């Protein structure tokens, strides 16, 4: 298992395909972050990904998209 990486705002934003502003919003909402030796805010990659998954699961539009994709892949339900 690789050692967890510490990501700056910019790296974190790139990792989860979000903007820096959104990552800052996640911190305001309670995502734990630390400070590195150069005084920059950093976040543990595992913590960031866990927050990313939590938000995806709590995002109705994303859940709807996932369900629609599943239906397309599996075909429509047929009542017998």
């Amino acid at each position: 298992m690789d050692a967890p990486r510490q990501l700056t705002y910019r790296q974190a934003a790139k990792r989860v395909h979000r903007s820096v502003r959104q990552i800052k919003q996640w911190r305001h909402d309670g995502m734990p972050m630390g400070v590195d030796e150069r005084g920059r805010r950093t976040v543990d990659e595992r913590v960031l990904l866990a927050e990313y998954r939590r938000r995806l699961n709590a995002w109705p539009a994303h859940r709807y998209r996932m369900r629609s994709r599943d239906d397309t892949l599996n075909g429509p339900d047929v009542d017998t």
Partner: protein
Amino acid sequence: MHDDTKPMPEEWSRWVESLRWHLDLVPGLLEAMRAARIPSAAAQMGAERVSGSGANGSPAPLRVEATDDGDLLWRELGELLDIIDRWFEGEQADRYGAELVARIATRADRAETTARGEMSPNLTATEARLRGYEITNAILDRAEQIADRPALRDACETLFTTLRRLRARYAPEAKRARRRRCTTCGEVAVVCEWAVLVTRTVARGYATCTECGQEYMEELWTRPDS
């Protein structure tokens, strides 16, 4: 906070997928072990000199471990192929009797296997890889039938143990099986592994999404086809 591991979807953890993952390693491993046989570039150029001898005798001109491991894998592959062939011909293979000796002799006729079932020393790394593809394709052609027969599955599991051990030694970056669509983020980025050991010989299915970090664990006790 991180403990949101999901059970692995059924179609990912089918035994056939595990078979495919393990057999995908074979050509690369055969090539790597063949290439690792020669100790250094100097030896390939014919400049290898073995001089003097200590209490244990002269050093071997070839890497003995790589050669032995290559022979072991080659022999196990040959035996597995024989077992599968015999099974589908309607009889159970005899792995230890005179019949086995006869079968190895038949393979030795093809000039790529020695009389003891080992890989021929004349086989180059590239040839070993190509032959690896042929053997694995022959097994994978019957993957679905093998999965339905516990005796054949047991024979394959023996090979899996060897493959996992050799992978760790010779090809840790070996090719991964195809990726699956993540049920959390929707990206095709889930890498399945069958090499997370539960005991020394039993492996457990494990998968991680490289995009969102979602982890999946195979529930061994609920696996429908085990």
